[in-house]
């Protein structure tokens, strides 16, 4: 613990106190139609948004898509949406998820400004379900769209939630070779957001 004390002592000596705690006001995106903006934003980050009235309709819409039709292994953490081929909760070792074609995951909230969807770790048996499959479908309710990240963090109350969580905005991508955008770097090759309600 010598290092810890030494570092903190140096920091206490060198820090210049007095900077006021900033108040996060005067910011916040405003959109007349959150759902329309969400669809636009998901498209802009390389995903697709499908609006459906209810969960059975989400299920039907998903089953009609090639990512479901052509899939051999499907995990679904959203009851009633997608034809799961196995129960992901019974998988002990996440390595067994390799070869997964499609994950259907619940989204806790959606951010209209940037198309991101919050995935809550506590609701998933494995973090790998987000990145290991070829395709990801996220199911989120219209009522859970917030305008921007400020509103999202205000609702998330992260201090009360252990484990992991992430914002996912579109499919995995890279532009590391001459800045050519390539979709499907390591994670999902496509992302569909099923917006319910």
């Amino acid at each position, binding site marked *: *613990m010598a*290092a810890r004390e*030494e*570092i*903190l002592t140096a*920091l206490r000596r*060198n*820090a210049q106190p*007095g*900077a*006021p*705690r900033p108040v*996060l006001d*005067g*910011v*916040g*995106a405003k959109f007349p139609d959150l759902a329309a903006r969400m669809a636009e*934003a998901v498209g*802009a*980050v390389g995903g697709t948004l499908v609006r459906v009235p209810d969960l059975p309709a989400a299920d039907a819409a998903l089953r009609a898509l090639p990512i479901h039709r052509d899939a051999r292994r499907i995990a679904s953490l959203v009851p009633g949406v997608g034809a799961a081929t196995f129960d992901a909760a019974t998988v002990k070792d996440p*390595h067994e998820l390799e070869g997964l074609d499609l994950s259907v995951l619940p989204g806790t909230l959606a951010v209209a400004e*940037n198309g*991101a969807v919050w995935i809550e*770790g506590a609701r998933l048996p494995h*973090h*790998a379900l*987000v*990145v290991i499959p070829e395709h990801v479908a996220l199911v989120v309710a219209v009522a859970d769209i917030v305008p*921007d*990240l*400020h*509103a*999202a*963090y*205000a609702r998330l109350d*992260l*201090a009360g*939630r*252990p*484990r*992991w*969580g*992430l914002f*996912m*905005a579109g499919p*995995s*991508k*890279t*532009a*590391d*070779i*001459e*800045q*050519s955008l*390539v979709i*499907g*770097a*390591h*994670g*999902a090759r496509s992302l569909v957001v099923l917006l319910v309600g």
Partner: protein
Amino acid sequence: MSHLATLKHPEAAARFAADVPRTHWHDESLWFMRVKRDRAAAQVPEWERLRELAQAIKAYALANLPALLEQFEKNATAAGATVHWARDAEEHNKIVHQLLFAKGVTRLVKSKSMLTEECGLNPYLEARGLEVVDTDLGERIVQFRNEPPSHIVLPAIHLKKEEIGELFSQKLGTEKGASDPKYLTEAARGHLRQKFLHAQAGLTGVNFALADTGAVVVCTNEGNADMGTSLPPLHIACMGLEKIVPHAQDLGVFLRLLARSATGQPVTTYSTHFHGPRRGSELHIVIVDNGRSALLGRDPYRRALSCIRCGACMNTCPVFRRSGGHSYGVTVPGPIGSVLAPAIDARAHAALPFASTLCGSCADVCPVRIDLHHQLLAWRGDLVAAGHGSTGKSLALRFTAWIFASPARYALAGKLARFAMRVLPAGLMRLLAGAWGRQRELPVAPVESFRDRYRRTHGRA
């Protein structure tokens, strides 16, 4: 670290710029990023307000760093993570190695971490028999080439797709001559997927550490940080101690700024919050000083600790765009790197604050409003005062000051210069004009000076 590290920036930059078409290509590639950043920023009406808030939050965090770090440690520990402290690069490398050694890890996957680059972690672990695989595509490319990243966000921006195609044909067995980015990325995906599946531990950097929840936040577009941490039972997250932000709420500001400033995206694809380890695994967080606490005590340079590593200052810098990241010889190049590096080793990096036109474009795009060009100017004064200036330049400036100090000497010098420009051959004049004259045509010398003319038209001086 870099094979260019022993060269001073001007020499390394001259080498880079000797290939004129390639320099133009590099310049345009980075400017393209700047244009995308501008477009993204323009879509957020309160952009400037966000920058002000980001600056203020970072100032507050730096002012309260010791307390916030302790709060972070307490909360991260409560969430199940183990927090380690490292005074310098060596201590950091030792801690990471011991953690891996204790678990018998021989295969490690890493997502992007400029800190571990700064600490020389890869060679340290490789010398101890570990396989270390950088999994960000750009980083894997430069790792295959045994060279450091040339840019903190775009590690392989200095390479053409044909060169990467050639490299991949040797390393990954891709078709010879193939250079389609989609094809090459697919090959890397297959190769790295195997590395992910067989890794026994995953190491990530940290974009933000939240004092109030104890979470570390990692942002990637490829998903490599999620892939590398969601399979093996050990996650090591390495962070510079300046990565602390007080509240989760503050991320609303930073995540709106970060990707827009870096690549023009509204947000990174994966912004993952690790709050303790996932079930059945361990999370170790290594907090590294390595000169940062000393920098905190140095005005005006402490503000450089606000940097969120978006790379915007590099993309816009006219010197970076035309000299390439490797010419700086440091892990973090460009304007921010030229402020940070002399604080670590003034003698070795004395040339860097001079690798700038002081145009201020870097400060204009900086999402946390670091006054980069002012800091670069301040460094020049400090470095020259400390005896790190170039002798030729010092002599020339002292001579110029001596001339400027006397009206008579000034008038005589002007007369001599005008005379010399008229009678001496252009080639010789260009030599006399020094570095400035090397790529410029000297102007035609006027027949009379301003003072002569004023005397002629107004009758007195």
